[in-house]
């Protein structure tokens, strides 16, 4: 028999709805490495006692697994090329140094300071690519150190050439980033991008490179599209193949195609929870069930005369095909024009594939710990059908929404409670430590496995990519979280401050 949904929708004769009151969990996906850190609750408590709340934890060794998973996809498709870590996703130096120790891995830097960090971590110049718009200082250090410059505009090409010519620097290896690719037959509307050279200006871009041939050595072309949509990326990839072919026709020797980042992460353990949550959210917005969010916030959905309008402004937190799997899917996808798999086309033309994953390389690479300051309301403990404010459980934490920018990035998942309190799930809103009405850690009511007590810890797992330090500020003189690197010592986890981590600790030495 099928799922009978009668009870969700009103009958004309007006039988009332039976609301679904089971707690709407969004259980995070916790891999063994994260699990083994959570298991060390005494250590975690000591760290927060000693270094304060919030506390960021990074797990450099988890990077190895992710890099290897991407390389496995390369091997499967017989492709060569470099995996560049998009540094912007986390400021940790421990992560950068750890990656530098992997002789093949590269790093994508998007600012002068990120370039300095990469150089001082020991990355050789051919393993560094500079992306995004760049100022003169950035271009100069890039040219001087001999890294690859991925040019974001035609003007940048000229400016780089001028810097090199004026200071008699060696010829720079460059790429050109393209955007606004044209599709055939079906018009694929892409979100407008502020970055890259419009593909229609391909000839002009190649002319510009030729004009500065003494300063610029074109080694490849690139794109980075901020979308989860595979069809748009397939169009862009095929466009870049055409650009490389055009370059070859002019006698150029560019061999690399850099497809940027945006491979995504699967944050949730159970797709059914995500489906149920989003369905119920729509019902809540339509007023057919009790609110599940602060002030009935709809995450982009709104109720217009009983019809759901808008679109869900949330990251699709359950993504069974993400990261390396997404890359694999893209390479298997048929090019919209040539109708041959994109991976095969790359290989046919002997092109190297470069990627710049940020978020996906940091999957399971860190967590944020926060101390519970106060737990208020909802004393009866259970799920609470009434939306009376007194009866909502409010948990105030010693961190603010900028310290853990899950909400800003639209990623919903429940924190893990580190506590000796008896188990029994509760629903609660999480409040931050700024005296601002808006300082909610999440506008969604989260589900906690147990009711925490003041002094307990909440762990926001899998938050190394963009959520940990991307937005943190010193508003109200609240401290910015210290960062600690955990690594496998002799037996179990050892730790050091992020800035003290070098990948030559004892275990690594022994290996």
């Amino acid at each position: 028999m099928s799922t009978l949904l009668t009870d969700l929708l009103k009958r004309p004769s007006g039988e009332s709805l039976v609301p679904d009151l089971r707690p709407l969990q969004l259980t995070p996906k916790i891999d063994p490495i994260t699990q083994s850190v959570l298991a060390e609750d005494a250590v975690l408590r000591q760290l927060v006692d000693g270094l304060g709340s919030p506390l960021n934890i990074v797990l450099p060794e988890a990077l190895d697994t992710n890099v290897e998973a991407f390389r496995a996809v390369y091997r499967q498709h017989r492709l060569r090329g470099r995996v560049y870590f998009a540094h912007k996703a986390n400021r940790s130096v421990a992560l950068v140094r750890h990656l530098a120790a992997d002789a093949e891995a590269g790093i994508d830097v998007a600012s002068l300071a990120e370039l300095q960090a990469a150089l001082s971590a020991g990355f050789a110049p051919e393993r560094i690519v500079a992306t995004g718009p760049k100022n003169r200082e950035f271009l100069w250090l890039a040219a001087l150190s001999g890294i690859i410059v991925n040019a974001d505009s035609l003007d940048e090409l000229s400016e780089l050439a001028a810097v090199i010519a004026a200071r008699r620097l060696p010829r720079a290896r460059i790429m050109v980033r393209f955007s606004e690719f044209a599709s055939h037959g079906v018009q694929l509307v892409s979100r407008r991008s502020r970055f890259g050279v419009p593909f229609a200006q391909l000839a002009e871009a190649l002319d510009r490179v030729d004009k500065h041939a003494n300063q610029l050595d074109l080694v490849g072309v690139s794109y980075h599209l901020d979308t989860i949509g595979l069809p748009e990326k397939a169009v862009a990839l095929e466009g870049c193949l055409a650009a490389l072919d055009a370059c070859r026709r002019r006698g150029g020797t560019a061999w690399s195609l850099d497809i940027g980042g945006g491979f995504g992460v699967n944050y949730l353990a159970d797709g059914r929870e995500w489906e149920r949550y989003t369905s119920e959210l729509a019902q809540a917005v339509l007023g057919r069930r009790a609110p599940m969010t602060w002030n009935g916030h709809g995450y982009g959905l709104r109720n217009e005369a009983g019809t759901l309008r808008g679109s869900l402004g949330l990251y699709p937190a359950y993504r069974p095909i993400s990261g390396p799997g997404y890359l694999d899917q893209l390479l298997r996808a048929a090019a919209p024009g040539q109708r041959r798999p994109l991976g095969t086309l790359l290989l046919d033309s002997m092109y190297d594939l470069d990627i710049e994953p940020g978020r996906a390389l940091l999957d399971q690479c860190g967590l944020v710990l926060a101390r519970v300051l106060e737990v208020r309301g909802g004393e009866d403990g259970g799920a609470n059908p009434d939306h009376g404010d007194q009866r909502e459980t409010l948990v105030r934490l010693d961190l603010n929404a900028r310290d853990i920018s899950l909400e800003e990035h639209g990623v919903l998942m429940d924190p893990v409670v580190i506590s000796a309190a008896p188990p029994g799930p509760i629903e609660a809103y999480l409040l931050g430590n700024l005296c601002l009405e808006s300082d909610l850690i999440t506008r969604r009511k989260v589900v906690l496995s147990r009711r925490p007590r003041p002094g307990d810890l909440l762990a926001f797992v899998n938050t190394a990519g963009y959520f940990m330090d991307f937005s943190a500020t010193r508003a109200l003189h609240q401290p910015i979280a210290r960062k600690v690197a955990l690594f496998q010592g002799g037996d179990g986890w050892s730790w050091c401050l992020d800035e003290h981590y070098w990948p030559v600790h004892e275990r690594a030495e022994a290996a």
Partner: protein
Amino acid sequence: MRFDDMTEAIGNTPLVRIDPAVHGLINIDLYAKMELLNPFGSLKDRAAWQMARPLLAGAADRGDTVVELSSGNTAKALAMLAGMHGLKFKSVTNRMKVPEIKDLLLLLGAEIDELPGQAECLDPTDTEDPLSRMHRTLTSNGSGYVHTDQYFNELNVEAHLHGTGPEIVKDLDGRAPDYFIACVGTAGSSTGVARALRQHDPDVRVLGLVAAKSDFIPGIRTIDEVHEVGLFDPGVYDTIETITSDDAIDGLLTLVRRCGTPAGPTGGGAFQGAVRHLAAIDATLTERRTAVFIVCDRVESYLSYLRERRPTLFGRPARRNDTRSLTDDEVAAAPTIDVNEAERWSGLIVDLRNPHAFQALHLDGSINIVDELFAELLHGGLPFSRRQPVLLVCPVGEKSARYAALLTRMGHPSVRSLEGGIIAWRDAGAPLVRD
């Protein structure tokens, strides 16, 4: 029947009884409303014509483009109607997932705009989704577009209130059926028919079918998406149930193989959903009842959808001379030569890569037969003489080794594969040319 134009052929579709031996219901007569017999191919012809008719005259004067958010049947019908009136048609969609329908629309002269996927990094300043933005552009005056707006246009309902519904009552000798079952896309047909039937008999039970969440049945909404439809009013349906794409295909197979009805997936889904729902009721009945479901469109447009979900339906006998039949030992024993030897090769060189890659750079004197084509040739037998030595070239030497093994098995004595492929050749600094 003599008509002035095809629009007169819209509607008046037959109501056909389904053989009880097929559906197995004892006390219920089950009828299919054969909307697949509409001239442009589906139920949506009615709504398209009803919505477009009042707009066409003005639009033709201004040279406007007709535009609709549709991924299938409505677009097909509107493209035909627009073409008959010398107008252009544009379809805007984020759900065009069936390649045949895409190709058919292009063939009909439609323009297709596909909306972008969700941003990987959420932009909190972007409060409007692409669909709403598109909507606003379309509805502003002087935009050059007339928008039929099927998800909100009451005429979509009226097409069925005055057409489909009354036809059913007439064919049942002036009585409404006891049960009416329909899949919900824009909700136009189910709402209009339900309204017409209830005017005759307020007790008609209406079952709406939607796709299960995260499933995909082309033409209808999922249980979540249905709330985004302006015409959707849950009060219309006594019951809303979900069907899966598997249900839809099972039903489709029954209709095409046993009922002489070349139905598409939603027709199959409606049949399957109807039988499932009615079977429970049937057991409790003591008197006869009638039920009607809608067969919306035809099967032909969905072959790739079916192939993807039920590849076994298309199982063909294995073809001879197929590389997939090679054993690992045969592949390992494939005759190869290294770059050094290859530089002195005087026979034929066949490059198996795609034509773009070949034209950009290749071994001097080689010819290009892309692997897919080469495989086709070999199904037919040896494509060159046994006395002609052949060197096969591919990117890394894997594909060429398989083909060399296959040609060896086929009796060719002097075929070789370039070890490491053209990449090894390049890396060794051997010459590559373009013509």
